[in-house]
């Protein structure tokens, strides 16, 4: 039963993925992509990896998909259709897709389809939310307190950068205006 469900889900995800790539309608392609991500979320839940599943929903469906939809609506306006790609483009895309596919397939084949887990990963195959939280705030040798704190700095830097780029033009104009006035006075 479990196996049947797994393969069914995989088939649905692959179907969505094909739609996402082949659809000429951008909006439809984005929705199909969201379907692929939702399938991944269900897979993670089935594995018991609740944290990964939640992060997937938060980051991809909550964040990335919204961004993509915004970008689609802002840039394309009424016309959401795309022109048909040329044969050369299709061949190039297939080659590019084949490289990571062959890499991952090769790895899976060489590893005999089993993932060689080692060390602490063996003791607890999938970490719970609680243990992840404790680990992140653990100042010990195997904790991640420093990177956890650094992430907040990273977010702050990203925010400052975004604000600086967004407000830049207005300030530059006023500063320029003042100075050109001064220069005119001088001359």
């Amino acid at each position, binding site marked *: 039963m479990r196996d049947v469900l797994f393969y069914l889900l995989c088939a649905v995800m692959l179907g969505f993925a094909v739609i996402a790539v082949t659809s000429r309608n951008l909006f439809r392609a984005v929705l199909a992509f969201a379907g692929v991500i939702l399938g991944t979320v269900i897979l993670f839940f089935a594995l018991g990896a609740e944290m990964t599943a939640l992060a997937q929903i938060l980051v991809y469906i909550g964040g990335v998909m919204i961004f993509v939809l915004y970008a689609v609506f802002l840039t394309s306006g009424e016309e959401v259709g795309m022109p048909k790609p040329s044969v050369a483009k299709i061949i190039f895309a297939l080659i590019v897709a084949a490289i990571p596919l062959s*890499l991952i397939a*090769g*790895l899976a084949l*060489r*590893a005999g389809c089993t*993932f*060689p*887990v*080692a*060390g*602490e*990963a*063996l003791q607890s195959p999938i970490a719970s939310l609680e243990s992840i939280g404790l680990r992140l705030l*653990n*100042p*010990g*040798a*195997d*904790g*991640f*307190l*420093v*990177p956890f704190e*650094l*992430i907040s*700095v*990273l977010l*702050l*830097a*990203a925010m*400052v*950068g*975004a*604000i*600086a*780029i967004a*407000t*830049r*033009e207005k*300030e*530059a104009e006023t*500063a*320029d205006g003042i*100075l050109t006035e001064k220069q005119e006075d001088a001359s």
Partner: protein
Amino acid sequence: MSTPFSTPFLSAFLPDLALLVLALVVLTTEIVFRKHQARWTARVAVAGLAAVLILLAALPLPSGGVAYAGYQVTRSVVVWKQLFALATLATILLSRSYFRNGHSLRGALANPGAFYGLLLFSTTGMFALVSARDLLTFYIGLELATLPLYALTALQPRNAGSIEAGSKYMLMGAFASALSLFGISFLYGAAGSLGFDALAKVASAQPSLSAQPFLLAGVLMLLGSLGFKLAMVPFQMWAPDVYEGAPTAVTAFLSTGSKAAAVAATTTLFLGPLNLPRIDLGAIFALAAVLSLLAGTLGAMRQSNLRRFIAYSSIAQAGYMLMAFTGGEGSEAAARIALQYNLLVYGTASFALFFVVSLVGRSAPETIPSLRGLSARSPALAALLALSLFSLIGIPPLAGFLGKFLLFAVAARNGHYTLIFIGALAVALSFYYYMRLLKEAYQPVQTAENRGAPASAVPLSPIRLSLAGKCAAALLAILLVVLGTCPGMLNFIASR
């Protein structure tokens, strides 16, 4: 492990914490100072960075270093941090005039608080990067070091090239960081832990790479993503566009501070836990070095834009530095020292070059023909340009010679004589493209008097340096000579 607030803990963390606090203070300086914001922000940043440098040099460190929650500080780490802080300091000093109108044809910079704050955030990321003892800290440090640079690249007001360069840089960077995350996930699968110790254990197992496909995939992906930051072939295509579009001070930081961080990151991994895979993959490092030398050399020959020229020259420099990673077992310490020395020397020469570029760029486009007549406009500046170019080529007794010699020596230990031959060939070819700049600078200008017509659009008014500018030029020139003639002085400073 040391507990918080004990002496070794403080001595290890104080500089990093001070730098972080400084970044936050600089962000808010604009609120305090209503007038001359750019000047005051720069002053605060310079004073703070000087304090960080003093802390780095003065604080005692146990011989084995200090470790705390995936963060470690050793003597070599401190040297890296000093290099980053110096590069940031020089960048701030270089950038000051760009906040004033009329000091660059490309328009003045705005938002000093954000500009210097982002620069210091990037330096904080570099500090974390070299202190990392696990892949998570390493990755976050790498992101924190590069993410502010995307914004800084796009900070030039009303310059379409700057925005374009920023978005290009960010897209390329996002691809690189996705690649490194993918690689890290493979390494986690192979080692079962994110810690460097577990990784080193797995990497040293025999037979190493051929029997561990996950390790091989992870190592190759991480090498690719670091190759982006290093501007190593085949991941170098972003460099010329970004160098051209970014504000001059940011370009200077990209080619010195950011390059140093990329080399430090590669060192942290590939002269650390992934040392044995590096030796197994020596041929890949050698190939990347040769290709980078080739692409940088051939690219630099055809440029007339100074920034693109510097970008290609920095790709070639990445090629030289990659040679240090081709050494065999036992060459790690020599490679690390060669890289650190080389980055200091390269940084000094680069800043001297950017100093000249920034002064020439006040009244002319930043191109090689704009340098024409520099020796007549300012003999001292032309001499500084000559010193910096001779050092970049590697002519003794200037500092660049010893830097290249140390790098070649590491490669020679492992018998990579073909690589050294190609490196020497690249040095010979670099004569040609660096000398093009000098030829322009020292070419006598055909003036209007002896031609009877306006000679060119290039203004030939003499360049007058301020007192600070004179001091900076003198300091850079002295460093270029002294670093090359008595490098033992560095040893004295490092051992305190």
